[in-house]
């Protein structure tokens, strides 16, 4: 970057110069290096539909979903991976969509809250959240539900957690397990007890 600026070509200028591979003006004596493109094409599947985008490399998966694909069900809370509001399911796994670049997901299968259920055909966890009033303001809810869907799959697959008593036996769907496994989703309204009720019903935890 320094070398480019010394030559009177700012990085910004290079980026604005456009798409495609461009040869940067190299510092005297240095080998000319091909500059990779500033916007990057990416193609992935969202809720079963193929989507093709050309994005500024900085675009997070969260911003691609919300701002480019207008799937605003996924929420931006802290934008730093601390609150879980942006949780989506990528290739079967829950992740924080704010802490990953969209262009890193070429070929991925992404499920957002819009892909889990519809108003007339709710996902069992969506129905359970309604039944148990698992929210107050609702802002964290899409993240809570996406997280819970993938979390129950993790539990079913036998993945251990911090509170699992042993590493060798299959973990059970207990209250302690559900709470620990949902710790990446914060609810500022404090609706945790109802969120827990909703998830434990779907998980089949006996009272």
């Amino acid at each position, binding site marked *: 970057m320094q*070398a480019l600026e010394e030559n009177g070509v700012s990085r910004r200028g290079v*980026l604005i110069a456009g798409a495609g591979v461009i040869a940067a003006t190299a510092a005297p004596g240095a080998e000319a290096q091909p500059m990779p493109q500033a916007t*990057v094409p990416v193609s992935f599947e969202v809720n079963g539909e193929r989507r093709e985008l050309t994005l500024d*490399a900085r675009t997070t998966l969260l911003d691609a979903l919300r701002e480019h694909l207008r799937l605003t069900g996924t929420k931006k809370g802290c934008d730093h991976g601390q609150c879980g509001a942006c949780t989506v399911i990528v290739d079967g796994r829950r992740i924080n969509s704010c802490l990953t670049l969209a262009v890193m997901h070429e070929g991925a299968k992404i499920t957002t809250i819009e892909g889990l259920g519809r108003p007339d055909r709710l996902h069992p966890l969506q129905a359970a959240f309604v039944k148990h009033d698992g929210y107050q303001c609702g802002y964290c809810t899409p993240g809570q539900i996406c997280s819970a869907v*993938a*979390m129950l799959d993790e539990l079913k697959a036998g993945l251990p957690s*911090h509170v699992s008593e042993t590493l060798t036996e299959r973990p059970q769907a207990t209250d302690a397990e559900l709470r620990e496994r949902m710790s990446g989703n914060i609810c500022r309204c404090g609706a945790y007890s109802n969120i827990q009720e909703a998830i434990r019903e779907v998980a089949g935890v006996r009272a």
Partner: protein
Amino acid sequence: MKAFSYQRATSPMDAAAKATVTPGARFIAGGTNLLDLMKLEIEAPTHLIDVNGIGLDKIEKTEEGGLRIGALVRNTDLAAHEDVRRDYGLLSRALLAGASGQLRNKATTAGNLLQRTRCPYFYDTQQPCNKRKPGSGCSAIGGVSRQLAVVGASPACIATHPSDMAVALRALDAVVETVDAKGMARAIPIADFHRLPGETPDVETALTPGELITAVTLPKPAGGKHIYHKVRDRASYAFALVSVGAIVQKDGSGRVALGGVAHKPWRVEPADALLRRGAKPVIEHLLADAQPTAENSFKVTLVERTLAAVLAEARA
């Protein structure tokens, strides 16, 4: 976030070669720490090399009877791997004590080793920090230091290394394998991988520019009871105030490494020999040169009591 160009690497050597010829380049794998820091412009790479498509995502047995963990194995997969759960329970437990389900699904083995400190002054770009801006000073010394280092620190930096996984790897005598742009492989013992801050706290590891971590290897299983105790301000999803990773054999011998107390996972091998005499002499040896601040001197007591709890559990 500052603008950067983006490229996908095709092999480990290709990644190292690309990084070597591009000053200001960084590798990106899980991205859970790097992107967080890029949003705050604490990290501002001019070029990102995406290493997600280059393999390095397997866990295999080594000829020596140990395990080779690919650099890109996700924390979730490593913690859940059958061999790790059976033979290296300390590693599973440490991983599961860190971060959240979502983060562990993305975070990689190499990325976890390379994560940056959570010192509040490293994050606050309005404050001096020798790690973020070399030569600017250390705001933590004389500042809010409750979370920070008690041993191995320097007048330039009292940050801690935040990883739980690295504490387990230190106790397990792991080795970090790397490759450079010329294809030269190198094996770095975990003890030498992370540096103490000294006068250059911005230099955190033994890696040279462009050098890429390819794997972490574990020697053959050590047996014994594997215990990881982490003490933190919340029951889940919080960094350690202190942590203790230990492997304790039936005869009471074993090894111990500490987290949350230093700029690197903290182990002093001669202290292991004192394990049969209880927590106090071990911690006295491990923290012999401790220079805690008024705000974090509680860690010295806390870590001794945490080790005492670990040893009690080992005997149970």
